[in-house]
């Protein structure tokens, strides 16, 4: 079966999942089943099919499983968000469509994605500049003490979601060019392999940027995510584990320093370590998140059956704060239980595996590093927010990719997917060619 046919078949269960999910929520809400869930399922399938046909034409060799996997997450997210608030789900569906449009635009215009390498500094600078926008008076927005959002007129977005793409592109390109020197120029000092200082300058800039984000944007989650992606790429590019250790030490020292000097960062860590100190105020979100999970048990309460507001309060008071964004994973555990949550984690793991598969197949350094970086940042983002909600690490305001409510998140992640598929299409085409299937060589223009 060809790659695209496999993709087509994989999309059918996704649409069925969405239909079944909506049916379950409707059944819970009105105790009667209309055909609305079928209509939603059909819409979703139609949109996915259109995307699939576009991929058939533009990237026939691209990985067949990534798009259905991401569509699974989106479908799951749509059901969960619908169950919280209908209007939010409608927004999310619109952003899903917008995300797919940008996905198509990316694939259409970036067929030769090496062009990104040429503009790597521009991309990096623009990426970092938009990150600062939330601090610009008038357009910046503060949420829970962190400066995460920008609002210009009716248009609101979270720059960190886009900056992560810019940073990965920059790092992939920079490391492709300098990896040799970083390896060869490394010196052993006191038994520790140190990278050459000259070429390491820009790397220090990344560290500085992460620390800057921590202090200035106060975004612990994005800071962690960026820096972890950077270390992952550095490791893959150089093969020096010592660099990762040094980097990690630098981050921890910096984070520790700022945790003891910047109140916001300090608070986040304090809440993480001692949530029961103020269960009704600062500790409320993480505690309610954990209580929601305890309520789920092995199999969960079922779609639409978990408590997210306190009954009898007007306007409804949230029992689980930020259920549609930060703590959506807790709601998932609550409604579909440990088994359902493991399913979701498994989907993230499968998508990550496919992403790294692309990196393995890619033949040139930039493609390899780009695919690695995009996959790593995707996986780490999922880890940072799920880890935050389950108290593995401090809880921060990062979205759960493809599932959390949020336009910037959906759109940026579909662009991420587009870039991965672009790399994949070329890698798989090149991998197939030398095999010399009769006739294929002649068909390549």
């Amino acid at each position: 079966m060809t790659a695209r046919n496999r993709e087509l078949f994989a999309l059918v269960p996704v649409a069925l999942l969405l239909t079944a999910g909506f049916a379950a929520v409707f059944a819970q809400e009105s105790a009667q089943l209309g055909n609305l869930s079928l209509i939603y399922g059909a819409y979703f399938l139609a949109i996915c099919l259109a995307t699939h046909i576009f991929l058939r034409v533009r990237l026939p060799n691209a990985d067949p499983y990534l798009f259905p996997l991401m569509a699974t997450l989106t479908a799951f997210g749509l059901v969960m968000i619908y169950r919280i608030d209908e209007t939010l789900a409608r927004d999310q569906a619109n952003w899903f469509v917008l995300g797919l449009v940008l996905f198509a635009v990316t694939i259409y215009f970036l067929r030769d994605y090496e062009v990104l390498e040429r503009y790597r500094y521009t991309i990096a600078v623009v990426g970092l500049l938009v990150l600062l926008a939330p601090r610009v008076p008038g357009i910046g927005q503060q949420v829970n003490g962190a400066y995460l959002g920008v609002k210009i007129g009716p248009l609101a977005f979270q720059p960190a979601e886009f900056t992560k793409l810019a940073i990965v592109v920059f790092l992939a390109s920079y490391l492709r060019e300098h990896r040799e020197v970083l390896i060869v120029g490394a010196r052993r000092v006191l038994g520790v392999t140190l990278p050459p200082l000259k070429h390491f300058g820009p790397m220090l800039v990344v560290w500085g940027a992460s620390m800057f984000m921590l202090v200035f944007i106060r975004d612990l989650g994005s800071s962690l995510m960026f820096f972890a992606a950077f270390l992952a790429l550095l490791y893959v590019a150089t093969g020096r584990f010592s660099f990762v250790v040094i980097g990690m030490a630098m981050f921890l020292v910096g984070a520790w320093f700022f945790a003891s000097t910047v109140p916001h960062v300090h608070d986040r860590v304090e809440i993480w370590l001692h949530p029961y100190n103020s269960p009704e105020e600062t500790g409320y979100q993480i505690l309610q998140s954990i209580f929601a999970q305890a309520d789920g048990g092995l199999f969960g309460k079922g779609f639409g059956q978990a408590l997210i507001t306190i009954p009898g309060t007007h306007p409804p008071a949230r029992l689980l704060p930020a259920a549609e964004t930060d703590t959506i994973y807790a709601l998932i555990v609550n409604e579909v239980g440990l088994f359902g949550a493991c399913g979701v984690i498994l989907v993230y793991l499968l998508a990550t595996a496919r992403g790294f598969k692309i990196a393995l197949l890619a033949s040139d350094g930039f493609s390899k590093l780009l695919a690695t970086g995009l996959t790593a940042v995707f996986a780490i983002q999922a880890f940072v927010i799920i880890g935050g909600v389950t108290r593995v690490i401090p809880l921060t305001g990062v979205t759960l990719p493809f599932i959390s409510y949020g336009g910037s998140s959906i759109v940026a992640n579909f662009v991420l997917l587009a870039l991965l598929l672009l790399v994949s299409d070329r890698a798989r085409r090149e991998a197939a060619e030398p095999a010399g299937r009769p006739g294929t060589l002649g068909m390549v223009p």
Partner: protein
Amino acid sequence: MNRQIVKLFAFIVVLFGVLVGFTSYWSVFDAEALKEKNANKRPLLEQQQIPRGRILAADGTVIAKSVPKGKGAEKRYVRRYPEGALFGHPIGYSFVQFGDSEFEQFHNEELVGEESEFGSILDELTGGTQEGNDIVTNIDAEAQRVALADLEASGFGAVVAIVPQTGEVKVMASNAPYNPNRVPYKFSKLSTNDIERPLYDRATQGQYPPGSTFKVVTAAAGLESGTITPETTINAPGTLEVEGTPLQNDFNEDFGPIALDTALTNSVNTWFGQLAQQVGEDELFETMEKFGFNATPGIDLPSDQVETSGVFGEQGELLHRNDPVDLARLGIGQERLLATPLQIAEVAAAIANGGKLMKPQIWKRVIDPDGRVVDRLDPSVYSEPVSAETAEQLTTAMEGVVSEGTGTNAAISGIAVAGKTGTAETPGNKACGGGVDENQAWFMGFAPADDPQIAIAASVECTEQFGNDVAAPIFRDVAETILNGE
């Protein structure tokens, strides 16, 4: 670079494994502990969505029920107590914001219909929703009404009535009462009222000096240990010098050598003081403990809401048989001896039941939403403080108290009553406002004496009257109501 990519993937697999581990911990392994946390309002909120079972009196009177409010996801159930203050004690209340108390708290699991994880999955598959079980209590609504009305006319206090052969609690009334329906609106007022203390169940939490009612326990220890027989006489002078302080009879009356019947009928202090000294601390404490003293009562109420009866030291600590006590004063119910009305009712019930003390229980049947009886009270013996013979001898003596002694106001026409009065002087009692003439008035007993149907203790605090004046009439009214209702 491929080797590193594979290693990176392996690392991410580990990270995701950690996520699965933590999720398992919160959702399964630590889930029960998390549900117990004070900050976790979910169990209460979820219980609010379950129609909690009703609580019924023995005759079917609805004591507590749940009424729905709101619709759809907003739907929740709120507790209503149709009889208001009548059953505030011992039933208690159950509200999300204010928690629960007494019977509602003790029987919470049955009332919400707690099920296994498997049961709730079945429910989910079949579309069923959790529903609570009804509980039928032993409470006699009419007798409870009489007891509370009498108490309200007499003063703060409590009445407990127990079926001697089964331990079924027919009446448990406490004055001042409170209306559980008002708990959500008046909680702080109800819980901070230091004088009336309406949320405090005097029947199980009121620790009072039992006065002369305790002489029955002393007599039981004397007979049971073989120290005396009903014929043994002890010389009872008007005053007895004990540990440097005179122990006196009422009006300093000198009775001369008398036996148990005369001593109990006239509640002779010097007689029982000497008996206690002859019995000795070990035997007296052993009998007390068999009657239920020095232990948390085994009634179906939360253990933090029932007080232990016994001898208490200066610091309020419970004394045991090796601690130094003034035996003569203990024998007549003094010497920092404190007992709850429930405890004194248990003493009466044990004697009425031929010496066997049954575990007192308020509940009788649990009925599931389909009307099936899923559980039924199986009466169990708590202890056997005295032999049947001793019980009979004590009964005879206690009959004398009512027929010709200090407790004549407990008499019921045509029925033999056995009982004992008690009047403990409590001058300077802070709960009474510190008056000098305040008494703790008691009556405990059972009827009919030859075929006991009900054992009752009535206690009134802060009264200037005696047990026979204020507590015995309450006993009579409640006993009559129960016996007429049979």
